[in-house]
């Protein structure tokens, strides 16, 4: 036990600095959130991940988010079990026929104000499974989508950066817009 504790105490704290994340240029498609919602979810955000026929690639990347390198929790973001507790829905994979009902129910079960993020190429436009008989090609065909994070699968850094950009970008732009107003 003692050796474990000593190892914990001594190992260096290595975590992706926030600045580096903000500088990453990721093109996130989707219009701005209103400032009130942004301010609301600034401090704390709970995400419910829905795998709608995904190839589990996006899920691997998302689990990596809560390790000590990326450590999503320091931004007040955490993954929750029930859509009732969730604010944001991460939907991955082209929505398969038998997941449609499940996805619609999850969407209905999430209280407002809620954000839907289609993560990974599969979710955005069907990716490699496009136009196959079993899928709807994209999440937006089933439920309204607010943001998209492209990539097959997008790396954790990209996901984290886009998340921060979704929640914080207007500051910069408001500073910008407030300046030029």
């Amino acid at each position, binding site marked *: 036990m003692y050796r474990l504790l000593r190892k914990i105490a001594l190992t260096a704290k290595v975590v992706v600095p926030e600045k580096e994340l903000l500088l990453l240029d990721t093109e996130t498609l989707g219009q701005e959130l209103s400032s009130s919602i942004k301010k609301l979810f600034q401090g704390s955000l709970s995400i419910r991940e829905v795998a709608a026929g995904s190839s589990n690639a996006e899920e691997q990347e998302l689990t990596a988010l809560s390790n000590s390198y990326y450590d999503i929790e320091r931004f007040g973001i955490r993954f929750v079990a029930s859509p*009732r507790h969730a604010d944001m829905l991460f939907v991955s994979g082209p929505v398969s026929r038998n997941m449609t009902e*499940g996805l619609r129910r999850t969407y*209905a*079960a999430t209280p*407002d104000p809620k954000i839907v993020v289609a993560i990974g190429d599969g979710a955005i436009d069907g990716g490699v499974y496009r136009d196959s008989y079993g899928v709807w090609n994209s999440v937006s065909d089933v439920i309204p989508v607010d943001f998209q994070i492209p990539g097959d699968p997008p790396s954790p850094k990209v996901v984290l950066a886009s998340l921060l950009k979704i929640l914080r970008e207007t500051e910069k732009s408001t500073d910008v817009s407030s300046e030029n107003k």
Partner: protein
Amino acid sequence: MEFLLTPASVLLLFAFFFIGSVGAVFIERLFSDNGKMAGFWGHGFALLGSLLGLAISVSVLFFGQGIAFTLPTVFPNFLLDFRLDGIAAFFFGIISLVSALASIYGFGYQKHFYGKYRLGVFSFFYNAFIASLLLVPIANHALFFLLAWELMSVASYFLVVFENQKEENIKAGFLYFLMTHFGTVFVMIAFFLAYKATGSFLFDDWRAATGTITPLIQGIIFGAALIGFGTKAGIIPLHIWLPEAHPAAPSHVSALMSGVMVKTALFMLFRFFFDFFPGAPMEWGLVIILIGSLSALLGILYALSENDIKRLFAFSTVENVGIILLGLGAGVTFFSIGLESFALFSLAAALYHTLNHAIFKSLLFLGAGSVVEATGTRNMESYGGLIKLLPFTAGFFLVGSLAISAFPPFNGFASEWLTFQSLFIGMTSAEMIIKVVFFIAIGSLVFTSGLAAACFVKTFGATFLARPRTEEAKNAKEVSVFMLLPMGILALLSFLLGINATTVVASLIAIIASIGLIRPVTLQFPFSEFIQARADFAAILPLESIALLLGLVFLLSFGAIWFVTRSRKIVVGPTWDCGTPLGPRGEITSGSFSRSLVTIFRGILRPTRQSTVEYHDEDMRYFIKSQEIRTSMSDPYRKGIYQPIGVVLHFLASQARRIQSGNVNMYILYLFLTLIILLLWATHV
């Protein structure tokens, strides 16, 4: 008001019941509306009688000195001697209160029997039952008491087997009849021993002759009384008839039986240990406490594993009888080691729990009655979601469950808190044996209250919450106002009795002191600054301020939160079941709820499980067509104690049959031989 204190009022009371019972039989013949008028007549007069009884007991308790009179009878040694002193008036009051409310409930419940059973007969036995219940505390002559006791047993037997189309009711009735008379045998032993020791059947002479009884005789009398009245009260080894008989009776009768008839047995135990032969040695107190803790713990464990709603309440009656016995046993122990005022206090706790249990148990049984009336079955597995269909019943049922699980603002908590305090006092006494026994009592009481909370979450949840699991539960409808009114009154009473616990305990201490052998002195309680029981005033935990605080804090937080979140919307959607449209079969039922606790206590409960599998093709045994799992509780008492006794009796009986050879001459020979033997014995003795 003075009229209520005269013997005439008591006779008028029994006249009401007489008219109610006999009249109903004729009424039923006159009107051909399958018993509707007879039912109203019977329940009406029962209501009148009980209200008069309530008035008498209130006037005796608070204004008068008590009623005592004697009616001579034909037989020399048999006097109808009535005596209504403080303690008898208290029980008289409880009985008449619960029977009044049960009769009101009966008006609504009787349409359950139209056309199926004869309501005239029901009213006859119903009035006879209540009359005999009221006779028991008032009887002051041993034989008169035995008459009332027997009348009570017989009347309740006929009420238990009233719905005789169901086979299990008949069996339950037979077992009940057998066990009560087993108990009555011991009661008679106690009475006749007392008669032999004191030379008279009058209880007053017994009270006077306290000094002259040898300890041995007193011990046997106490033992016989404990077994006799214990059978009627339903202490653990003798309880097997209670969960059979109480559910079989119509609901308002089982409310009477569970809430009140059990209390008459405890009343007589109190009389025997404190009124007739006070000064029982300490060992009796410890024995009562051990029986009490055993009954409490095992009673609630069996209630927990029960799926039939009325059997569950019957087992919980066994548990509450155990708790009352704890208070009584503590009283006997303190009295024997000289702490009279603490004895007074723990007896007040026992009587308070008797009153509370009579109220919330009858509330729960009436609630169960209306649920059974609405759904038509007693099996909790087929209920579910009834709170939306029977809103008032659910509300009152919740109040009853809160009261019985002893939660603060209600009366159950007040009496359990008092029982705890009296057990704490016993714990600090000098003797080691007393300390050990009181430890066991506290341990069993705390486990019992924890399991009681779990049991009543299960009962309320499985019956009223979530979605209806069967068709009957789906189209259940709210019961008539006659059935809701008594439940409402009982719920209000159980709240009021919880709130002003102080005044109730003060009057109880006065009642017990009225027996004249214990004078309340100032008590110094080691455990709580809140108990000050001086001569005339007993202040216990101010439950009303706790209730007030809880109410205030609830309103404050509710208002603040409502203000903060008033602009938020509430959307009503389907229950979240991981996206799959799970039907009502997915929710938890009473059996699965108690499965974890039953598995933990499997050593005691010994659950049995048979699973039968049916394959499509017997020898291939790969594809299962259907699988059935049947879980149930084995009944150790019936297998362990009553079965062997039955076998032995049967064997003896079959031996005795051989004497009946069928030959007339043989019988005359037996006669002749006995004649000769008697002659020899007569001349030589």
